[in-house]
């Protein structure tokens, strides 16, 4: 079967070109006999034909190697970006939630005024300060992680600074029992929602789209298509060779075709599995992380509205519809495992509403500020922490799996490049054998 087994006929042995016959019968196309001898018409163009076939064959496998390796490298890159984008998405959602958590603490703190329990006030002050410090740290980390977010984060930084200043002024005035403290507080809360939250919503949307797009970075179809086209070209080269030489199979080209075929199948299966895994992460873990962060954000928003209705006495009709709106988001998006915590908080909130609607100020304030189970703070904290845990767990799983799967894509990319080169060598050798036979 090896072409080297048969000595190529010397060119001198070629019969001299016969004078053109007046009525030469049309040449019959036939499957060449396996003799290794050039057959059919155009025998004089054989070296040129071999050169052309070699160029076509080598170019095809090299382009295959490069393109297929590139696609796999892009998949490797896309998974890395998907992990980064997912982390950034979780980070900006964390900013959003922490900011509203800070507002929920600040508004609740205002209910204690200057005459509350000093230890409770000090604890809440510390919790608020920690939340605001976390927000600024997260903004810095987010700006470093995604240059495309820099401008938006810069604007967010200004809005958060203004909010923090307003709350500092509110705290100072409320300690003196001056009503202007409540104006600073409600103005700061309102500006937070009108200035900072729209920026954060844009950041969440942009990073969601980026993460989703990056997670769709696996391309099994293109790998299959490129492989199929390359195998097709190699088959065509084989057929032309077989027509010209009396051999069914050119081993070099056949080896190249098998390399391309196997590489394609392995790469496509790996890409398909990666794609499925990413889809699974997108549909399950990432969606869960995003939803629970959204539920947590809406929950803290509602808690802030609950305090604001008490800070601004008589404003129940203003703030209760806003509380209801946020509560609906929680019910729609929170995982069923944390809904009981939320419902426990809602029961306390309803107590506050009942008391406040009847202007039973003392009982309403007691339920709103108590830190034990008799108040609304403890059940809310239980919900908040449970939601935070779900966000952390699911986002960690998403990024870990994205990073773990990408190594295979990088190895595959390098191997494909090498196998492409190997296939090119095989084509050169295969066609070189025919050239030697011819010469």
């Amino acid at each position, binding site marked *: 079967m090896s072409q080297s087994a048969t000595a190529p006929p010397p060119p001198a042995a070629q019969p001299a070109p016969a004078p053109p016959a007046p009525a030469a019968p049309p040449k019959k196309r036939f499957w060449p006999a396996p003799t290794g001898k050039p057959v059919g018409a155009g025998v004089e163009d054989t070296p040129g034909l071999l050169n052309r076939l070699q160029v076509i064959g080598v170019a095809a496998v090299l382009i295959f190697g490069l393109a297929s390796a590139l696609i796999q490298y892009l998949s490797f890159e896309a998974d890395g970006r998907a992990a980064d984008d997912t982390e950034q998405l979780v980070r900006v959602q964390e900013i959003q939630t922490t900011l509203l958590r800070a507002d929920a603490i600040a508004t609740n703190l205002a209910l204690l005024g200057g005459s509350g329990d000093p230890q409770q006030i000090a604890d809440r002050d510390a919790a608020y300060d920690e939340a605001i410090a976390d927000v600024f740290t997260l903004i810095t980390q987010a700006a470093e992680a995604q240059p495309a977010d820099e401008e938006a984060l810069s604007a967010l930084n200004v809005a958060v600074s203004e909010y923090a200043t307003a709350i500092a002024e509110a705290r100072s005035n409320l300690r003196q029992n001056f*009503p202007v403290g409540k104006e600073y507080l409600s*103005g700061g809360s309102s500006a937070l929602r009108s200035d900072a939250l729209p920026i954060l919503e844009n950041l969440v949307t942009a990073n969601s789209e980026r993460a989703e797009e990056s997670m769709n970075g696996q391309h099994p179809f293109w790998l299959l298509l490129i492989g199929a086209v390359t195998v097709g070209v190699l088959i065509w080269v084989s057929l032309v060779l077989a027509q010209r030489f009396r051999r069914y199979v050119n081993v070099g080209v056949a080896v190249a075709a098998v390399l391309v075929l196997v590489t394609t199948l392995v790469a496509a299966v790996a890409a398909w599995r990666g794609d499925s895994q990413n889809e699974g992460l997108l549909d399950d873990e990432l969606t869960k992380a995003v939803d629970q962060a959204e539920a947590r954000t809406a929950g803290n928003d509602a808690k802030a509205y609950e305090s604001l209705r008490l800070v601004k006495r008589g404003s129940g009709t203003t703030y209760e519809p806003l509380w209801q709106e946020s509560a609906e988001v929680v019910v729609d998006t929170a995982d069923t495992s944390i809904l009981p915590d939320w419902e426990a908080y809602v029961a306390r909130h309803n107590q506050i509403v009942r008391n406040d609607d009847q202007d039973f100020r003392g009982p309403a304030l007691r339920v709103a500020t108590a830190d034990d189970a008799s108040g609304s703070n403890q059940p809310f904290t239980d919900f908040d922490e449970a939601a935070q845990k779900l966000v952390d767990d699911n986002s960690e799983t998403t990024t870990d799996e994205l990073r773990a799967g990408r190594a295979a894509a990088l190895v595959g990319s390098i191997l494909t490049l090498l196998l492409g080169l190997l296939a090119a060598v095989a084509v050169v050798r295969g066609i070189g054998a025919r050239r030697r036979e011819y010469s």
Partner: protein
Amino acid sequence: MTVAMRLAAVALAAALLAGCGYEDTPLPEEPEASAATSAPDCETPDESGTDPVASYHPGEGVPTGPKLDEIRARGRLIVGVSADTYLMASENPEEGNRIEGFDIEFAKEIGSAIFGSDFNAGRNLELRVITASQRIPLLTAGDLDLVIRNFTINSQRWGCIAFSAEYYHSGQKVLVGASLADDDEENGEYRDPSDLAGLRVCAPTGSTSLVNIEEAEPDAKIEPAVNHTGCLVKFQRGEVDAITGDDTVLAGLAAQDPYAVVPDQEPLSDEPYGIGANQEDIDLVRFVNYVLAEMRDGEWEAAYERWLQPVLDPEGDDDVVQPTPTYGR
């Protein structure tokens, strides 16, 4: 082959660039400013020759009537008040967040007169905190018995509701920083609205105070805020140089900021405060006027001295007295 390699290199570079570049996250568009809510349309009654501050005569003895019977049967008097107008009506966190102030003294007096010796403020008096824009709608809807909340009596409002006799005569004045009230003429000492030319002045959006100051000094730079406390926030942040409004409100603002002063000045307008009621509740208005008349025995003066005088007249040299009631409706 060379051409193919070049093409592949270009494709590689293009793909890498396409994969790595992200569009910048957009900034939100500026929301359009919402129009200020307009006051409810009240058809001004044709009462030519009737003094707007004229109310219903209390008559002889203690007034009675269906509204008073309803309130006694209910066991509670429902009064719309403010909770953030310092000195007039605001919460005191040191007193269990009780609402207190000059206006609240009148609510207590009226409640006490209705329920007699059994009156208990916690049980018989419901202070419902409302905004300025809710005053007339809640009274006309019958949700409140009375409104005692910086309520200026005027002809247009008589078209919607009824007022008691005037219980305090306020006027629009200007609050400035201490540096403009230190008797230093060269430092732009504030004397009258002409001194506001070029200065930034705050008043609540859509208020008559804002219109009055624009007329008095067109060169003043108007910087509106949602309410007077919002103006104080701007003042403390250095965004405005002065605040204008009723002297009672300015007194409350000045009490919260040692740098804010209400200098001696002629008021820009007269603001006769009345207690608002539903137009149908004439018996209740008569009763309120009866209580106001009773307060001439010293209760009015005590309330003024406790809440407003320390800020509005610290020297005690102004002869501020309870306004003389005008009846005639």
